[in-house]
């Protein structure tokens, strides 16, 4: 797991992908901070993170698109799968590497808030809540992206499908309003990433939501491992 994690992470930063993804997210963080603080003269840090929610959604598919598909395409999966390690640890290593890129961007995204402490006292509770929410939401999206990437050898398809899924998960809220069946709408809203994410933006550490996101990660890592193993039987 460690070997795979190290290799994957190295490959993100040996190619421009890692830098571009982190830089793009950081630039947006910086810009929106500026917009919210200076132009909007607002201290509502959650407005910043609400925008970042959308941007992360766009960047994560780019981070995860190559994770599994590349190995399959270049046949390097033969080295991984014939090595004495379990499939789940290979997949976990890959997931962690993708997540780390995202983690790096999110954590560096706290810099503006840190800078602010020299001049004022920003609401750290709320900032950390948002930060944690971003990580949890991002982790779940990364796991889904890694899974989608294992379904195809094409990076482009992996990116587009992951993007479509994340847009769908964001819009699912709107769907609940139009559903007449209360039972169905309850299920849909239960699945909604946005409604799970919202408590964090208020600076609350919502345990059910955290468990929800962590479970999504676990389920999709597991599914990816099953998918990779199923290839042996096809």
């Amino acid at each position, binding site marked *: 797991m460690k070997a795979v994690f190290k290799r994957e992470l190295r*490959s993100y930063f040996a190619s421009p992908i890692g830098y571009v993804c982190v830089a793009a997210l950081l630039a947006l963080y910086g810009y929106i901070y500026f917009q919210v603080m200076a132009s909007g003269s607002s201290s509502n840090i959650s407005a910043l993170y609400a925008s970042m929610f959308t941007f992360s959604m766009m960047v994560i598919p780019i981070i995860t698109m190559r994770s599994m598909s590349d190995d399959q395409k270049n046949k390097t999966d033969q*080295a991984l799968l014939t090595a*004495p390690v*379990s499939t789940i640890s290979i997949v976990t290593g890959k997931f962690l590497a993708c997540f780390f890129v995202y983690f790096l961007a999110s954590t560096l995204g706290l810099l503006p808030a840190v800078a602010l402490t020299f001049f004022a006292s920003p609401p750290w509770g709320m900032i950390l809540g948002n930060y944690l929410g971003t990580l949890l939401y991002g982790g779940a999206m990364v796991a889904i992206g890694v899974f989608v990437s294992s379904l195809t050898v094409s990076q482009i398809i992996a990116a587009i499908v992951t993007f479509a899924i994340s847009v769908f998960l964001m819009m699912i809220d709107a769907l609940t309003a139009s559903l007449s069946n209360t039972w169905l709408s309850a299920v849909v809203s239960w699945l909604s990433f946005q409604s799970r994410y919202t408590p964090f933006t208020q600076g609350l550490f919502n345990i059910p939501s955290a468990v929800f996101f962590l479970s999504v990660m676990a389920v999709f890592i597991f599914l990816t491992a099953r998918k990779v193993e199923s290839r*042996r*039987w096809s």
Partner: protein
Amino acid sequence: MVEVKNLTKRYGLNMALKDVSFKVEEGTIVGFLGPNGAGKSTTMNIITGYLSATSGEVTVSGKNILDEPNEVKKLIGYLPEQPPLYLDMTVREYLNFMYDLKKVKQPRGKHIKEICEITKIEDVYNRLIGNLSKGYRQRVGIAQALLGNPPVLILDEPTVGLDPKQIIEIRNLITNLGRNHTVILSSHILSEIQAVCQRILVINHGQIVADGATDTLAHDLSSDHRLVLRVEAPEREAVHAIRELEHVTEVQSFGEKEPGIFELSVEADPNADVRKPLFALLARKGWPMMSLKNMDLTLEDLFLQLTSTDNVYQEEKEQEQQAAASVQIGPEGMVEVSEPSAEEVTEEKEEKGEEEA
């Protein structure tokens, strides 16, 4: 060391492997020979655990690949058909990564250095794999398989893409490795198999069609055991004298090929070697022997015969099978004739017919 039992692999309706069984002893180099798409790579992928068989089992030093995958994988070094290289890494980074991935116990620096020396990749050690030539990539692939010094090496077409000098080097390397490793290698280059392997498995359409020691396989599977002799002697007399020899069944003259020199074909019992008595006879008579040639099949003829699907060859093959069935096990005990009998062949044809129906 490596035992494969009744391996069958089905891709949808397509049978990639049909009931393949063989056993490889420790310290032997076995060559897997067969045309493209015969099932060589599939077999190798199953042994290494990359694919799973539809039925059948693989054990490596007594351990089953399905029950103890990680234990078995530790025992095997595998070079797939396309070396599994990360093009964005340098050779150094890649070998270190594979070292970690394979959980190798040997001291890192020393072990990797040794392997680089063996495979002669020291001078590209710090270069990006993506910038290496095909030959060097192949060698890095071999180096990767050697990491951890596994007792079993499985090499899928190890010399593809190498120049003639490199091919010789790699063959020597494999021969050396064969002294203390069990090596299974595949190739469709006959001379290579002949040069390196002690035993040959010929596979065609997912079935093993021949299995035997490299030196004797062609002889054992030949139906033609004629010797062609050129001798400076009176034609008639020579034919009569040779016919009198024990085990000789038929002598024919092909006529005068050079002034005073006749070409004779000598047929003998399949298991008898008449060369010595023949030589003694000619010496006694004072007839100089100008040449003596064995008409056994070459490995190439054999390969074409075994793997051809033409009907003409099919008939020949069936004759061959009968001939092969009568072959006794040689002194080395290496000759195992695993040809399906004519009955089995027809049974399979019926099965095929049913499937199609």
